[in-house]
């Protein structure tokens, strides 16, 4: 489940897709090899309770170095609680966490791991550059200042004070604060929630450059398109547990398969529903919608039986449908 097949799977499954979304560019080759290395994150039996509330109810998760993982889930799923514990900001009620084989607190102190947290501001009376310089002085192997400013896309606002930044600028400046220690693992808790569309694009551009260097990134997000576009792997959380874990393609396949749409004259829904590879069919005014577990097989059968079928579209069900059905389902098993 943890192999990176996103880029390979991407183009193949969307040959005739109509939902126009630019395909993610292929990731740089030669990411660090995972085996024989300590996982970037290892979580075992993690629990956190606040009084009577069980925020996290037992999580096991390994994330290999170099993976880009999206942490999805509705509000209250336990994402932020988990992130806090992974960073050593709060103590687990039970269970263990190591980052590169080390205690989170140690890993953070050594600059191995850093994060952009959901809330948080910059110091008002310092410029962005001064704040970065201060944090840089605390680290043993900081990233050069110019590189940080370039990577975080904040060269133009480096000399502004904290109070003079827009929401998106502040968020990019905080991203720079996380970059300056040159971390191997970066955790982002809803990094783009305060951003407009333009800022979000800029932010993910810089993020892509960062992950291209083979570093591990885990980001919690509400935006499913961000997960689809940037993550190798999706971990779906629901009420304090992991509801599903796999590549974007695997998560989608868990629930919905593909949708085949076509104009099919002289057919009935019942006949269409019995075609090989089709799991469900509706027909309205000659327009057929076929839910397929194997859309290739279904299409061949459709054209053999109904040569007049035209205007054919096959689309992958989005992550959104998978997300909704998985987070809503009471009995969804961990993948």
């Amino acid at each position, binding site marked *: 489940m943890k192999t990176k097949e996103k880029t390979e799977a991407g183009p193949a499954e969307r040959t005739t897709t109509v939902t126009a979304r630019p395909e993610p560019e292929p990731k740089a080759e030669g990411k660090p090899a995972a085996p024989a290395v300590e996982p970037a994150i290892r979580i075992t039996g993690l629990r956190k309770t606040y009084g009577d509330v069980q925020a996290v109810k037992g999580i096991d998760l390994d994330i290999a170095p170099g993976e880009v993982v999206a942490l999805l889930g509705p509000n209250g799923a336990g994402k932020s609680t988990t992130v806090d514990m992974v960073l050593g900001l709060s103590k687990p009620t039970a269970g263990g966490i190591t980052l590169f084989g080390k205690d989170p607190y140690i890993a953070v102190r050594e600059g191995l791991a850093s994060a952009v947290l959901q809330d948080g501001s910059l110091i008002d009376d310092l410029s962005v550059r001064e704040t970065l310089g201060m944090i840089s*002085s605390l680290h043993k192997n900081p990233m050069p200042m110019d590189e940080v400013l370039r990577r975080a896309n904040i060269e133009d606002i480096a000399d502004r004070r904290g109070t003079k930044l827009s929401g998106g600028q502040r968020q990019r400046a905080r991203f720079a604060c996380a970059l300056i220690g040159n971390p191997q693992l970066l955790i982002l808790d809803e990094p783009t929630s305060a951003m407009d569309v333009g800022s979000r694009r800029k932010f993910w551009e810089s993020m892509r450059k960062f992950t291209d260097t083979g570093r591990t990134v885990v980001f919690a997000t509400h935006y499913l398109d961000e997960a689809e576009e940037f993550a190798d792997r999706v971990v779906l959380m629901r009420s304090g547990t992991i509801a599903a874990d796999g590549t974007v393609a695997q998560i989608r396949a868990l629930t919905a398969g593909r949708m085949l749409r076509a104009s099919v004259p002289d057919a009935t829904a019942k006949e269409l529903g019995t075609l090989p590879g089709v799991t469900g069919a509706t027909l309205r005014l000659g327009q057929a919608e076929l839910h397929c577990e194997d859309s290739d097989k279904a299409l061949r059968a459709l054209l053999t039986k109904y040569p007049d079928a035209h205007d054919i579209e096959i689309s992958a069900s989005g992550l959104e449908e998978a997300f909704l059905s998985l987070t809503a389902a009471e009995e969804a098993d961990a993948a």
Partner: protein
Amino acid sequence: MTGYLSTEIKRMLRGPRFIIFAFVMPVLLYSLECMLYKNQTIPHSGGITYSAWLMCSLAAYSAFTSSMHTTARVSHERAIGWHRQLRLTPLLPRTYLLTKVFVAMIVALPGPALVALFGALTQDVHMTTGGWLQITLGIWIASLPCAVLGLVIGLYVQPEQQQMYLQGLIILFGFLGGLLLPTTGFPDWLVAIIKIMPSYWLADIGHGALLHDTRAVTGGLVLAAWTLVFSGAVVLSYRREAARA
């Protein structure tokens, strides 16, 4: 960790308004009180003038207000999430806290010196060199528990309530602690309470220089005890935050 310290000193120098307030206010209060008492001597004191006595009190007032104000600003940093940001850096909590106290002590140094200078130049206060050192450097060092107390406020209190707590403590320490008013007219039970307060002993570091007795030593011990108590509260708060968050 000098990078963090120099940044904090830079920030301190950027907020001159409250520094001026902390330095100028005590001198102003001092000159007002001296006008009130003119050149009278304190009864049964062996010729000590009010202006000399008040100089020690206001030097202490200056030291404790400026140091406490500086560390209490921590509450703002906590509220905006800067603490969490710092906890994602290699900065150790104790370095953070010690730096805050250190910077507060830098801010606290000029105040007592200014009051002493004012007393020497305009109020004709005379002292031995040792006496002058005792009311400047002595009071400055002895204001350490107040810097730590400011940190306690900064860590426990929300920024909206921080001013209220600070003002409350300044009034409590200033008036009841015998800094702004001589305690001679107070009833015995109130004097007993006053003698618990760190501000009373802070002023007595200076008063000891006037009276040539060992009350400064007692004061030093009491203030050291307060420093321990307040430091304990700081450590407790930081642990509590780490466990809860």
